[in-house]
């Protein structure tokens, strides 16, 4: 009994969106490399990162597209929403304007993804509490009103970064389990890589008391 050649069962496509400078690339970097990238240049284009995570015992490969936040690229980055299983929508808790633009990002996301896409709102830079410009409560209310998952996180300290990516994956996986997400739909953002159920020889204690089974 050996497993198939893949060491993951699913591929989930994520996009990260939000205004320029809210820390999208830093969140990705913190998630894939567990490091904070200081003086991170503006993303001119779409960065790509990947990591394998585990949800309910299933290995899942995340393919993450980190989009440029600059307004002038908005029309182009819209091309990347299609087929995303998860959308991480990021604002900067120290800059209200980035929060105010959320409804426009949300509109794009709703229009350009499918209904089962999990949208996760991240208030980044929560390490800069002193400079806070958006309260947790109002963002939470915005998230609740729009049915979004929400955390405040810090790409710098790493706080809640892992959680945001993992919770999104859990929600997507749950949708698959519940049958709400059709894996066969071309734009589900999920690919299934069937690997063998049970995997290798199970590591349980299978003593073979052979008293009555030793005949040839």
């Amino acid at each position: 009994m050996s497993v198939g050649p893949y060491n993951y069962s699913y591929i989930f496509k994520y996009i990260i969106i939000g205004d320029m400078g809210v820390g999208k690339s830093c969140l990705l970097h913190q998630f894939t490399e567990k490091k904070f990238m200081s003086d991170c240049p503006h993303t001119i284009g779409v960065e790509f990162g990947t990591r394998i995570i585990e949800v309910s015992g299933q290995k899942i490969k995340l393919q993450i597209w980190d989009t440029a936040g600059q307004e002038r690229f908005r029309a182009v980055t819209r091309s990347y929403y299609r087929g995303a299983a998860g959308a991480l929508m990021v604002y900067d808790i120290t800059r209200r304007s980035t929060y105010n633009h959320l409804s426009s990002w949300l509109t794009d996301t709703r229009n350009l993804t499918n209904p089962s896409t999990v949208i996760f709102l991240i208030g980044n830079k929560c390490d800069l509490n002193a400079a806070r410009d958006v309260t947790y409560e109002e963002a939470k209310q915005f998230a609740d009103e729009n049915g979004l998952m929400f955390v405040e996180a810090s790409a710098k300290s790493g706080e809640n970064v892992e959680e945001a990516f993992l919770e999104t994956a859990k929600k997507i996986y749950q949708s698959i389990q519940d049958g709400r997400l059709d894996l066969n739909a071309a734009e589900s953002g999920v690919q299934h890589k069937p690997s063998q159920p049970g995997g290798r020889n199970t590591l349980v204690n299978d003593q073979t008391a052979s008293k009555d089974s030793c005949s040839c």
Partner: protein
Amino acid sequence: MSTSQDLPGIIQAKLSSGEAAITVHEASLMQGWVRASRILALVEHENECALFIFISSRMPPEVFTDLAIERVIPVDADFKCEIDAGEQSVDVYVNISSRKLKLLFEMIPGLKTNNFVSEIMRSMEALSKRRGPPPEFQWLHKYSGSSNRNSADCVASSLDTSDDDAFKASKTEAEKMLDILDSPDIVVPRQSIAQGATPIAARESVIRHQMSMKEDDYTFTQTLRMFIGTWNVNGLPPSSSLTPWLASDLEPPDIYAIGFQELDLSKEAFLFNDTPREEEWRKAVMAGLHPGGKYRQVALVRLVGMMLILLVEEKHVKHVRNAAFETVGTGIMGKMGNKGGVAIRVEIHNTSICFVNSHLAAHVEEYERRNQDYHDICSRLSFSKFAPVKCIKDHDQIYWLGDLNYRITEVEINTVRDLINQNYFPALIQYDQLHRQRSQNNVFEGYHEGAITFKPTYKYDPGTDDWDSSEKNRAPAWCDRVLWRGDGIEQKEYRSHPILKTSDHKPVSALFDSQVRVIDVVKYRKVHEEVMKKLDKLENEFLPQVTVDNTEIIFDIVRYLEPQSQELIIANTGQVPVQFEFIKKLDDSKCCKEWLNIDPPVSFIMPGEKCDVKLEVFVDKKSAFKLNSGVDKLYDILVLHLEGGKDIFITVTGNYERSCFGSSLEALVHVSVPVREIPIGKLVELETTKEAPGGMEPYPIPKEIWFLVDHLYRHGLKKQNLFLLPGLHSELLAIRNWLDNGSSEPLPGSLHSIAEALLLLLDSTSEPIVPFNLQSVCLGASSNYLQCKQIVVQLPEYRKNVFLYLCFFLQELLSHANENGLDAKTLATVFGGIFLRDSPRPSARANSTVDRKKANFVYHFLVNDLSDYVVSKALHLGPSS
């Protein structure tokens, strides 16, 4: 793959005479996380086989000099080949190992791979059935460069470690790299990727391979005391306590493996494998165990008279996994169970252990038969619940016990008894058949046996310590033995227990301190996490990476028909070859706007190399109108896509200098000053509204047309080949500037350039003089002047004006045909294409019939009298305001 048919021939050419390549196959060697192409060949020489691993300087190789031998692995007792393929597997993984060397190959599933692997298996099987001395692989020494070693063991290892110059000289770059790769840490072979080795995806087999290479990092050893006992009980039931045998030591052992032979000699047991003795002896064993420990039976296996019980001290039970047992009969017809072997295998912590209890063929002279029984048990006993199946040899530790039945021969029985009485066993052992057969490598290759310091255990008169007194008067023999194989095993005791007198054999026991590898769960998780993290990191590192020198390409001033270009330098700063492509955006049909040209739009860059991409802006009639009218701007975002990786946006901007070229006739008639002099936006407004701004009386025709025609009228009526010879590009640009900027200087350029400028101006207008929607009507009417005339009269005013104005001028030109040599047909053809310009849609392709009709249409107006048309006075040629 057509060349691969020659592959066996090429390999054969690489080999020496007498060596035959049985089968040849292409495979990928997994080097750390990277796969590299190799060619494998199973080579046979006088019934000895070896696996040759070749590196080829090109794939597939074309001549044998392309090949270098990387390794030669003899197919000997240590050679292992395991297949690792999942059911939905895309690739087949083949593990080849020999001693410390472990290689993982990836092969494409299919008949070729099956054939190749089965040939390897066949050669291994042939080895296991081989009789006589084991192969020496002398013929391989030339490949290892070591001629003074005569043991086959040296071949594989010497290839690993030999500093021999001959071998060193043949080392390729790839081999040197391999040396680096063999270091325990996962080395990212940057160089190998540059050499074309491709990164691999995360795969379970590779992770398992990596984990097994790092085993030392997450395991520690624990010593277990093993008690291995064997007793031929001669079909008798237990008659006394087994404690003197099983509990004769101070310390309780951790593990008991107790084997019996001739448990039951009855016909029932032989035919139906059913006997009450099993339970009787099992109970006796349980009762006789060391009182210092609590033991649980992990497995019991019996075949007729051979029984093996495995007992484990309770505190270790939870670390015992994957227990399995098998039996092999080697009796009559090669399968009856009166002779043969039974085996139990388990994994204790991270060490696999196999216990074999065998009863080999009897009779003094039958030692070869015993050898054969041993080989049969080895080749036929396999634990089939595992995939791939595990054989005896596939275990880290093997304990082989039993009545092996080897005798003491070629010496007088009295001498034997004398030597025994003197306890002079070293002399006696020389006559022991097992000792002799083992020293000739005929049996139990690779096994160890401790020195025998006890009296032969056979044959006694039952119930006594007296040697056999029956008629047969058998010579004493060490029938009952314990051997072992594997690392970390130290024998502490090897003895017999003559106090037990039930049988004609005495029981034997051996005590071992055996090291098992224990997984440190915390360290294991850490190493596993490191491997996974490394994999994630590598996967991200292996993503294509480039830098571009500029993501904002700015063209300063772009003018009509004046190409400009800038270079974009794309440097591959990653570790893998990059395929890049400028891709189109969501709703676009092309990767860039029509005024831009990208060369090359798709290309391939090796790591460390660069590619210059030329971006050229060229505004011609296709795009000029959109830029003049504000429908389009010199602004585009290009998406530079790296295959399998990220996208980079390149912004291209420029200032387009508006021009009369690419404007509409309707707009131009409303502009009284040079186009460049009206404010920015005004032209856009004019193009949008087509309304006269602020009460200015529009011109009947655009002044630019008038300037050009007037100049030709004044200076060019007698010019030969006017409108037929091209102008100079530089002069055309000067004329464009003169028209757009205004000047007090005379119109620059030669007559030919001015004539061409006129054609270009007419050709660049947003719509042709005859609107697109009337073209087909005109073509239909082209044979009938009256109909043509009808159409022209109904043209929008300014178009009609321009049309007639130009026709007046062309008639004037033709009136000088004597001097300029022009004819109406030629001019009608030239202007037909312009007046009745095709719509830019690609479907409207050039077509000679259409062209002729266009010419016919214009021709009417060049040869007929136009004086009856009502036209503005201003359209009259000649000197005017």
